[in-house]
């Protein structure tokens, strides 16, 4: 903290903030106290645990890739163009952010399920999506996409169009401008958006359970495995929870670290 900076905060604000921080921290600490350290390694390396962890990592990475693939053009369109109904489109795109994931799962079933809008014709072609690993990725992408779009759209707006205009007058075609100017300028936001999407995908539970089910090695991701183990083996559930907490901490830590560092590179 900068010692010369004047904060001017009343003491009670600090007190309430500490209570708030404790509220977040306490359950996590409590969980750590419940960890059966003696059996920790065995618990987290059981076949079903490893399956769930690997599945979670695989699907979350795939979902993040899809979020980047679709989210970047969406963010560009929302930030750089005006079209009729843009506010409605933005609202709908961001809807999964506030929607209960179970509802997302039901909606996805209605679209891609065996009897679904797209699912039925796909089924006729021999392609079955629901209750497959693909369904897990779709569910995760559905809930994680808004995170990427939201953080990237703001950054693109903030970056403005002045550098892009200069690049165009220097003879760069629109695709070149996008690749060499726009995206590098918003790279920090793209990275942090991708990390947030990854974290959201990793934690996905409701939509996945509803739309993809819980089949070991196929659709049972780590959160589902933890929920299941809680019934039969609470020690395993706690141990796996700790693994997920650590992974999440690393992810959030990375975002917080990369963002200011990249900014400093531009202003140093």
């Amino acid at each position: 903290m900068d010692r010369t900076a004047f904060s001017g905060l009343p003491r009670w604000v600090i007190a309430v903030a500490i209570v708030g921080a404790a509220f977040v921290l306490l359950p996590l600490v409590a969980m750590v106290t419940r960890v059966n350290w003696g059996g920790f390694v065995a618990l987290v390396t059981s076949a079903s645990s490893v399956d769930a962890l690997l599945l979670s990592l695989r699907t979350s990475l795939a979902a993040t890739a899809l979020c980047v693939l679709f989210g970047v053009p969406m963010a560009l369109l929302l930030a750089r163009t005006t079209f009729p109904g843009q506010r409605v489109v933005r609202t709908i795109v961001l809807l999964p952010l506030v929607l209960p994931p179970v509802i997302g799962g039901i909606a996805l079933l209605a679209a891609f399920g065996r009897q679904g809008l797209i699912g039925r014709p796909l089924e006729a072609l021999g392609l079955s999506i629901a209750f497959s690993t693909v369904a897990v990725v779709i569910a995760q992408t559905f809930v994680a996409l808004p995170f990427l779009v939201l953080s990237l759209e703001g950054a693109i707006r903030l970056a403005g169009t002045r550098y892009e205009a200069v690049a165009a007058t220097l003879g760069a075609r629109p695709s070149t401008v996008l690749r060499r100017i726009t995206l590098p300028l918003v790279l920090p936001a793209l990275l942090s958006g991708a990390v947030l999407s990854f974290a959201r995908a990793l934690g996905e539970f409701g939509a996945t359970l509803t739309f993809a089910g819980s089949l070991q090695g196929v659709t049972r991701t780590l959160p589902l495995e933890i929920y299941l183990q809680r019934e039969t083996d609470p020690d395993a559930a706690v141990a796996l929870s700790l693994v997920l907490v650590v992974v999440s901490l690393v992810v959030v830590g990375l975002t917080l670290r990369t963002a200011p560092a990249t900014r400093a590179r531009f202003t140093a």
Partner: protein
Amino acid sequence: MTLHLQATVAERGFDVSLDVAEGQTLAVLGPNGAGKSTLLSILAGLLRPDSGRADLGGDSLFDLTSGHWSPPHRRGISLLAQEALLFPHLTALENVAFGPRSAGRSRAEARASAHRWLAAVEAAELGASRPAQLSGGQAQRVAIARALAPEPRLLLLDEPLAALDVAVAPTLRRMFRTVLAGRTAIVVTHEVLDALTLADRVVVLGEGKIVEQGATAEVLQRPRHPFTAGLAGLNLLTGVRTATGLRMSDGTVVTGAGTGTLGAPAAAAARPSAISVQLDRPAGANAFPVTVQDLEPRGDSVRVRSASMSADISPGRAAVLGLGPGLPVWFSLPEDEVAVYPR
């Protein structure tokens, strides 16, 4: 690369038609909001006018009667703004190489060309620097090299010296002079010095229209528009040509030699330092009763402003006269300081 442009933008009241001959530099002067930036944006392809057409060296830039519109990257027109706007994530060399690279040159060719252009603007040693490490003057040099590297057919400069320290501006002004020699270019500027040192011709814009144009020296010596006179540091007296000089709209008669037909609109320019200030009516012609509006120190003189004209006198003289706002005085102007010309 002769440029012809005719364009209107109704929303901004912009309606301009101009030509720039091959290898010539045109200075565009005008108050804020006169349409100078609009003009450059239209030429660079960043703003689409409502109507008009433009061609450069025989190639059409746009022709809105037929709907033709060439996008910025196909125009071969570089734009250099007040701020250098170097791409912050690229080194100075990569910035300069950006244009040639975008034109499809190989990486090695583009870098070689960037090295040459950096050397040409005396910034060879800055190649490896990031824009954030450069001073304002250094950044603007790199920006010049970057604008020239694609070998543009037309160079647009938007107040390229305005954001720089007074200490580095002269060096860069000299550099621009070298760079612009033989190049077709348009320089938007607030500085009469830029127009004098850089441009062959001048266009003065006011409220989206051209209010006067001509050879730089001619326009600055014989301004027809108050804005131009202000830039040139001259008093502008406008009226109708008479046998002995001109008569202003308020009936004031100005005596002096000049050109123009009787009864036609005429103007006379007078240097503020040629005007003397007295408390009592002086003998002879060109004595104007005025009221002092304000006084402004200007180096070793004091500018005495009235509603219609200004005089520069010494601080001592101002003290002797006891000048102050609201004081009625006489301005007098020697006849041989007045040149009347058609407006």
